[in-house]
């Protein structure tokens, strides 16, 4: 591991000022469950680490309009177990509790969860080429080991997936991310936080150097957020990244879909909000045939690789099952 300077941030604005003024190898440290591992592997080589995990961003706050502001330093275990979250935003609680282990959930922060890096084996092995880690070196995954990698939203340069469960639920819940930069605070939709790789896969997000995530805002609880769920398929029963995952929410009146949210995990470089399927489903009968047909309109855009083509039918089945479960009809 490269030697590094360590300092504890005195306040969010002080942290932003420090990192913005410093070279790009100065980084924020949250719970460390991904960053410290990447430093051990030599994938991350910061010269200076600014610890923001102790900042007073560790609370849940109900906003005047009824929304919920989740501090960026809230631990994943605390958020996933919060009774209010479990009742009003069940998809979020379920996604958090389906992620990692009890130990890691106790360490990991909300901000760090959003900004964790891909678990692509090439990215995490400095002996291998990787366009995300070392731009221009190539992507061996396309013809190599890509079973766990993307089927949609990928590019010629990179087929990595984003590994977060939590972010998939936040995407379906229309969460917004509060970002503190050198020019003040801004609020961005979760989908605007993440970018697709294109020809510059080095950048996972639209954040600039020095930008600090201070919190995540959920819309006020509604019939839609309360009827939400997260389903995850993995290679073992617990403590594994998703092979396929979906966060879904739906409201139905007289057998017809009023409103619906579908976001897939494990298939794309970011949570994949299935907007085509959502648009198709609104106003349609809430049954397996129409749900399946809407999902097909979304998944027809998938471009899987030989060893991950299973993710297309797996994602479809997870979404059909989740939506029918929420609707309460026959499966």
């Amino acid at each position, binding site marked *: 591991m490269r030697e590094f300077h360590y300092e*504890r941030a005195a306040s969010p604005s002080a942290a932003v000022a420090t990192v913005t003024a410093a070279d790009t190898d100065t980084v924020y440290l949250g719970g460390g469950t991904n960053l410290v591992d990447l430093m051990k592997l030599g994938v991350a080589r910061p010269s200076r680490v600014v610890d923001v995990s102790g900042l007073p961003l560790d609370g849940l706050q109900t906003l005047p309009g009824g929304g919920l502001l989740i501090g960026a330093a809230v631990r994943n275990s605390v958020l996933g177990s919060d009774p209010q979250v479990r009742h009003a935003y069940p998809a979020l609680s379920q996604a958090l509790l389906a992620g990692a*282990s*009890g130990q*890691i959930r106790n360490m990991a922060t909300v901000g760090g969860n959003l900004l964790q890096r891909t678990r692509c084996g090439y990215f995490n092995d400095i002996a291998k080429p990787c366009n995300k880690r070392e731009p221009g070196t190539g992507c061996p995954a396309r013809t190599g080991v890509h079973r766990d990698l993307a089927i949609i939203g990928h590019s010629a340069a990179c087929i990595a997936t984003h590994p977060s469960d939590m972010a998939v639920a936040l995407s379906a819940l229309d969460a917004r991310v509060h970002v503190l930069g050198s020019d003040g605070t801004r609020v961005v939709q979760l989908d605007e936080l993440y970018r697709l790789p294109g020809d510059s896969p080095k950048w996972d997000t639209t954040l600039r150097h020095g930008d600090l995530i201070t919190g995540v805002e959920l819309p006020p609880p509604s019939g839609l957020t309360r009827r939400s769920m997260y389903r995850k398929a993995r290679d073992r029963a617990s403590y594994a990244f998703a092979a396929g995952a979906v966060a879904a929410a739906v409201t139905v009146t007289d057998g017809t879909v009023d409103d619906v949210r579908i976001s897939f995990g494990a298939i794309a470089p970011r949570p994949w909000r299935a907007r085509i399927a959502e648009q198709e489903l609104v106003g349609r009968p809430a049954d397996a045939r129409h749900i399946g047909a809407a999902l097909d309109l979304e998944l027809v855009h998938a471009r899987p690789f030989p060893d991950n083509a299973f993710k297309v039918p797996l994602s479809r089945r997870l979404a059909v099952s989740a939506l029918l479960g929420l609707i309460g009809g026959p499966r």
Partner: protein
Amino acid sequence: MTILSPTSAPRAGDRADSRPTETFVHLTVNGTTHTLAVDNRTSLLDALRDRLELTGTKKGCDHGQCGACTVLLDGDRINACLQLAVAVGDRSVTTIEGLAADDALHPMQQAFLDHDGYQCGYCTPGQICSAVGALAEADRGWPSHVTPPGDTGPASAAELSADEIRERLSGNLCRCGAYVNIVTAVQQVAAGPRTDADDPS
């Protein structure tokens, strides 16, 4: 790399004079505060084992995947291999060496003995610390992945099913496959009375 006596202690957070990438820290472990200069790269796991000679905490994968290094930080179980020692701050660390009270084993240690919850024993300190943390979480009412979606969480650890215990301990691997007896041991403690002394937080 010397351990300083508390009387000569610089303030925590001070940089070591000669090495800007070393920091003086006050590490409170099992009730004793140690002052030492650590290379910022040092994990809590390496600080415990190599600097404080507390070798009960084991290094398995060193990447947060096996749970052998599990310790309690202010009572919450964490992977010591992913925790930088310099970032521990004023939180107190409890290791397997700190669970027993005087000559009496912690109930979780006794239960692992009673039910033969190990074979080679290498993962056992991590299993025991993780189990102690998991029962404290359940006593707090925290749900798990296998808690039915409509349930807020258990009233206490006494309600935990074997499925719940398996899920909550999934961050601790045992290559000997002693899982069956580990679950039995944890169930025994979950069902029994627990005192504040059993919860190091």
